[in-house]
């Protein structure tokens, strides 16, 4: 390890493996192991100090990616990193086992081998961060990914609105965990946020956390429906108090998905939580992230606001379905100097 906690390049590479059970083992070899987040006491005082100025946050975001630039080999590396952090997702009413198996195949081999060879990174055994599906598809996905270490994430708790009976929501989590889901993406009750019932939100998430058992809890706060960045910040912090392993922006079904201002706000709360507790919580922007350029922008945000450690799949994920295709095309361009086309890359 160098002084920054980075692995030295000559150490043997292992695959970007993710353990389905324990966060600590989910880290890339060489990265500092994580301490699992657990529910802690509800501390309303933490919330009262929170102020978020939208205009100032927007200004920061507007220049975030004009202040940093990655080119050439670094650009390739950053795009590969983005792939390793994708929760390759299908959440459609017409999902079938066949569709999910094809998606899982893509997760296992997200980029054409000759491209990886061209960059000299075939030894990375690059995969996506996870595959994300509805409960019904969990078993199919788990079977398809068996032996790969790629976790299956299940959206849960009455996704996307989260308004089904509370017992049903808990039962849904347990069912998905039982079916082999290593990660549960829950949705919070937005009413708790909109009406300032922070303790109710806390209790809800604590219950979800307990239902998850050893599975990772990713809390979707649905930023697009929370009205203000101050609400986004408070909701994220309450979820972390309640034991969330990840805070996630959106279901992808709201009219407004992830963007840099909500991501910056959540990232700052993650930093705040880390400073107060020493616990590192992950971040997952979801919905609407479609281009390699945007993805690199999110990585820059994580690196600038939270640091290098948050550029690993145990602390950062993209919830995206179309992103991978754009990255593949960009990668091919970098290798060949020719602009690529979608039909040259295997469908996910």
């Amino acid at each position: 390890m160098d002084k920054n906690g980075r692995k030295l390049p000559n150490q043997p590479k292992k695959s970007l493996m993710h353990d389905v059970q324990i966060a600590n083992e989910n880290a890339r070899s060489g990265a500092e192991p994580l301490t699992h987040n657990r529910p802690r006491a509800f501390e309303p005082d933490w919330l009262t100090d929170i102020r978020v100025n939208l205009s100032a946050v927007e200004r920061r975001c507007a220049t975030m990616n004009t202040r940093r630039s990655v080119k050439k080999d670094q650009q390739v590396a950053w795009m590969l990193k983005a792939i390793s952090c994708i929760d390759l997702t299908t959440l459609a009413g017409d999902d079938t086992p066949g569709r999910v198996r094809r998606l899982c195949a893509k997760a296992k081999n997200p980029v054409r081998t000759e491209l990886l060879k061209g960059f000299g990174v075939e030894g990375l055994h690059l995969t996506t961060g996870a595959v994300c599906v509805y409960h019904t598809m969990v078993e199919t996905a788990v079977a398809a990914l068996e032996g790969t270490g790629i976790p299956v994430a299940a959206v849960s708790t009455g996704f996307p609105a989260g308004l089904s009976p509370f017992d049903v929501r808990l039962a849904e989590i347990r069912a998905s965990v039982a079916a082999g889901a290593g990660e549960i993406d829950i949705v919070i009750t937005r009413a708790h946020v909109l009406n300032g019932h922070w303790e109710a939100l806390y209790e809800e998430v604590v219950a979800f956390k307990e239902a998850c058992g050893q599975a990772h809890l990713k809390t979707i706060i649905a930023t697009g429906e929370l009205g203000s960045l101050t609400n986004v910040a408070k909701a994220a912090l309450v979820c972390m108090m309640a034991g969330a392993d990840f805070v996630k922006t959106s279901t992808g079904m709201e009219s407004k998905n992830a963007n840099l201002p909500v991501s910056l706000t959540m990232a700052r709360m993650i930093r705040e939580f880390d400073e107060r507790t020493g616990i590192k919580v992950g971040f997952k922007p979801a919905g609407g992230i479609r281009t390699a350029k945007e993805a690199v922008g999110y990585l820059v945000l994580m690196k600038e606001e939270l640091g290098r450690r948050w550029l690993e799949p145990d602390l950062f994920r993209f919830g995206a379905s179309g992103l991978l295709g754009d990255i593949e095309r960009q990668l091919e361009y970098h290798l060949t100097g020719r602009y690529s086309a979608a039909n040259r890359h295997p469908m996910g």
Partner: protein
Amino acid sequence: MSVLEDFESMDYGPAPENSTKAMEWLAAHDKKFNHFIDGDWVTPSGKSWFASYNPASGDLLAEIAQGSKKDVDEAVQAATRAAKDWAGLSGHARARYLYAIARLIQKHARMLAVLESLDNGKPIRESRDIDVPLVARHFYHHVGWAQLADTQLKDFAPLGVVGQVIPWNFPLLMLAWKVAPALAAGNTVVLKPAEYTSLTALRFAEICEEAGLPKGVVNIVTGDGETGAEIVNHDGLQKLAFTGSTDVGRIIRRASAGSGKKLTLELGGKSPFLVFDDADLDSVVEGLVDAIWFNQGQVCCAGSRLIAQEGIAERLYEKIRARMGKLRLGDPLDKGIDIGAIVDPVQRDQIDALVKAGVEDGATLFQPDIPVPSQGCYYPPTLLTEVESSNICAREEIFGPVLSATTFRTLKEGVELANNTRYGLAASIWTETLSKAMEVAPQIKAGVIWVNSTNLFDAAAGFGGYRESGVGREGGHEGMMEYLKPAFEKDLKDITPLETPPAHFVEPGGDLPTIDRTAKLYYGGKQARADNDSSLTVVSHNGAYAGAVAYGQYKDIRNAVEAAAKAASWRNATHHNKAQILFYMAENLSIRAHEFEDRLKSLTGATAAKAKKEVALSIERLFNAAAWADKYDGQIHTPPMRGVVAAMKEPVGTLAILCPDDAPLLGFISLMAPAMAMGNTSVIVPSERYPLLATDFYQIIETSDVPAGVINIVTGPHKDLAPVLAKHDNVDGIWYHGSQPLSREVEELSADNIKRTWVNYGRAYDWFDPEQGSGKHLLRHATEVKNIWLPYGDQI
């Protein structure tokens, strides 16, 4: 490095901007440049050139012509020849040229940005995303002013030839701020870029050629401070515009005193960055990055004094230190660099010396452990905490990436600390409470206030300072006013000094002696005897003894200024209330109109009709000022952002007003009333020849509910009192209507604290003329424009 290693490290790596075009341009000129005079490239008369270097590498960029007196002469002559035709063009025609320039700037935007970064050392991100877009925006905005000039500015005339001297920190942007309004208003210019950074100005000259700008309208003479001095001292100019240090600003003020050259000075700053405990601290930190680590801190309006509420200060410092560790220093042409090179080793050494002195004064130093290039001229970002007001780093402009921090307890103390400086350029206020921000903003003595933001600029919003940060504004309507004069000014004639015949007294042996009335001074709401217990005799136009007034001297001025300063809360009186008091004075004057008419007749020899008219107009002037009190409103600008800029009109502060002899009542009222209506407190020296009209007015002041100290009157010789007032550091502005020599002296002595001045250069205003005696120009002289930036928004 391999992709695999990059994947592990996730470092950014180099991201160099392509400099080929800029380098090709330099090569095409054999790296040697002449002056641009009269539309031609002219070899410097002294056949001498100096070297200009890239501060990031130390490489020679080009040789630049050293301008001599002869070169400046030629440029001024060319500009003078061009002036008449240029001013004679229609506003639309001038707009077309400015539009062509704006378009060309956009077409060559990237090359200009690269050239700027090469020459100045600023990060390409800033020259590309901030400087050059603002340059284009400034020209476009002034395309609009040129277009509107014929209808909206028709009561004004251009000044003629303008000399402009600009600094090295925003070379092309400062050029734009100077050239665009000058040209839009119909002036021609002779501009000297800073010797460190001449290249974009020279490229701009080519753009002028390409735009087909008539010869001589823009002349660029390069050179050092001596060339600048030749411009400043040139008697063929009608205006000087300078951006740079306060010390040089003072020299220019003194050098140009009495010349009649209109002056805009954008000088130094030590701008406060006030953070309340209810601020979004993470955003505050980013604000500081933009405030003090923007352009290596070489920004006149840099938020260099962090003043944080004590309860959150430590926490904020921790966040700042952590953020500083993420700043990247290095090659300005790298797209991922935050802090580039300091413009010159001389500057770097100065920064270093000040930081060391600050530490000796008790400050705690923090510099992050980040790589600093070993080659080139760099200075690391620096945080100084525990910087008390007495520390040199709290008082002196450092002009580098150095933030000085201190704490405050209450809003009141925060404002006091913010204002505890000789400067007054800009301020940032951070709080999530609107009512707090809007309470603080008017209290801070600065021309630009950014609420929850910093270093925002737009051509539509004026920029410029209070106090020693300068005079005048750039941008917006107020900026245009700096390049125009009221049309009537060109017809003003020299004043005819009034004769004072020998005094003769009443013959002995007649009636009983009249009861002597020696008019006292009036200050702090009371009549007061002169400190030296002396009086001055006043005689009428024919020499008849007319009375005596107190012989005011420097101590009386001291007392009067103190009284005026104490009455500063007058600015906060409601406009309605100000108007009521002015109306009341008019009412009381009208009751005693005959008395004043008689006095005018006997004292000045005015005809009954003229005396009647002077009193009637004086009453009208009071009405006029009262009318404006609640109508000379500010403006709301809407720059390209979600938010508004409130351009508030604020009183100058304490005004010294020395009144003309002609129209001794009307001149006095015409000046006093608008000063008062705009919220100033005044120390007025009435007509020296006929002071009794003002001293008779005491009783009107006393019976009209005028708060103590708002109007203070000191009678006495102008030649004694004007210098005392001009030198007084607690006087914010001075108006003088009298002789040319004393006009010069007033301007010269006002340099020390950079007072706002308005002098007549010995020319006579016609106080009976409604435009000259009650036009808006009086209100402009009585106010400063403060632009308050208010970004808003909450819904995501």
